[in-house]
């Protein structure tokens, strides 16, 4: 019951911080297309279309990573400028519900990009039966990124650093891991580093779900799923423990 109440709070906060903006400000939907689709374009053109599938997977993940890590800026803005953070602390809303609410707001913004990318993904080889698993994998990456973005936001003391941190995190979790290029080309030492990022596992799982063969030492779909779930749980637990809901 308590959990349902908090989930309801999260959905309301998500709605509060996104839908009304979107209704009056369509530009806020467009910017999320810019980077992922630009990279998709570059990857596709420079490989004469051979890396299109990889590019679509990478774009999908980059959209979700961006809205997640973008919380570093958004949540900083809500805390420092709007004082929404302080408003919700002094209320029955739990920190994780607030986090989920802001994360949902980001997800709502990303809906148009997802509505383009997911059908493309299905069109180019993701079986419909595997769609729920694919959504689960990318959903975990989104929530992980949001938790990290929120955690960082609670330590940031000015708005500019908030936006900058979000951009930096989106590079770390969305662009550098093997999302737009095959993990197989990474030297083994860098691959080990890439395994520490959930995006890597989500990309590999999507490739497997699309029928591709992934030949990487020490990685299997089971390990990928376990890694994703463990990383998400660690991120959520760490955030609820370390994030500054109440300022020290």
């Amino acid at each position, binding site marked *: 019951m308590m959990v349902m109440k908090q989930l309801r709070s999260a959905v*309301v906060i998500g709605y509060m911080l996104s839908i009304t903006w979107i209704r009056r400000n369509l530009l806020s939907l467009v910017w999320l297309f810019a980077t992922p689709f630009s990279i998709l374009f570059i990857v596709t053109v420079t490989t004469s279309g051979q890396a299109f599938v990889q590019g679509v997977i990478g774009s999908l993940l980059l959209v979700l990573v961006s809205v997640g890590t973008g919380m570093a800026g958004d949540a900083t803005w809500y805390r420092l400028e709007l004082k929404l953070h302080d408003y919700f602390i002094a209320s029955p809303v739990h920190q994780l519900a607030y986090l989920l609410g802001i994360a949902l707001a980001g997800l709502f913004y990303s809906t148009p990009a997802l509505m383009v990318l997911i059908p493309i993904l299905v069109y180019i080889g993701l079986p419909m039966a595997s769609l729920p698993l694919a959504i689960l994998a990318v959903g975990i990456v989104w929530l992980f990124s949001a938790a990290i973005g929120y955690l960082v936001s609670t330590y940031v003391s000015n708005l500019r650093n908030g936006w900058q941190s979000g951009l930096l995190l989106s590079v770390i979790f969305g662009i550098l891991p093997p999302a737009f290029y095959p993990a197989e080309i990474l030297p083994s030492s860098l691959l080990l580093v890439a395994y520490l990022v959930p995006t890597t596992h989500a990309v590999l799982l999507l490739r497997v779900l699309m029928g591709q063969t992934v030949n990487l030492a020490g990685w299997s779909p089971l390990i990928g799923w376990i890694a994703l779930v463990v990383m998400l749980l660690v991120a959520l637990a760490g955030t609820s423990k370390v994030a500054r809901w109440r300022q020290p």
Partner: protein
Amino acid sequence: MAQASFSALVLSGLGLILKAIESTLLSKTYHGGKNPALDRVTMVVDSGQVFTLLGRNGAGTTTFLRIAATQLSPSSGEISVLGSDVRHAPDRVRRNVAAVPQEGNTIGPLTAWDHVYLALLARGMSRTEARKRTRYTLDQLELTEYQNQPADTLSGGLRQRVRVAMAVATDAELLFLDEPTLGLDAISRRRIWAVLREICKEGRTILLTTHYIEEAEILSNHVAIINSGRLISSGSPSDLLGKVEERVRVDVEGSGVSSDELASYGRLVRVAERWRVFTSDAKAGELTQEAVRRGCRVSVAPVSLEDLFVELVGREEE
């Protein structure tokens, strides 16, 4: 329409007063700060009151309020809110409080209605109840005619009223209002005061910070004056004024009476082109007669909370 806190009403009906907030030797030193922002403050806020924290900028009033509202951790000391320990059981406190943080802003395109209604839903209220309370509160704060306007098209004063409505509309037993009337015109401020008084009649408690001394004087059941993090005086406005020996202030303008002569009647302060003399009732009469006889312009008024505040804080800083 708004439901009073049942327990508070029953207890006040029985002549019992609950403590809404109780702090003991509460201190706060910010990271990297040399001096404490709050220094061993021991204070009790009774239920059903408007309790005002009055202080200069940076005096520690907001720090106290934020600690009580579970937004900030104290460095040392104890504080309980509505019977729950703020340090160790903040979630229990949070179920029954609401806050208007200082100098925040509204959410751009959300309407006044959206702000209040969605905030209530997020706090867990049913849609029917949230709708009812939103309508009532917007009406109370004279926001009904703006309820469908996006907040970013409203004036600063209206936006501030919307923020106040977000806390006032809740069913919280204790409201934390950090400078809720900052930047508002006199009419809007009075509107908010009227609403806050109604809230108190329902048995709810308000902890308020303000720099407007008139606001504290008119609105509060109890005023605590804080300076440099320390509680320097506390009581009802009339109690505080009752502690003053010089109950009258006489403003004298003109060259007919020298400052030395004026000083013989009481404490003398220069205010722009006038001399202000703080004195007793009897001496005020004498001084007025003498000053008028010598052709000075004179005005007489009872000492205000502002005079007391200036004197107490000034004395502290000396």
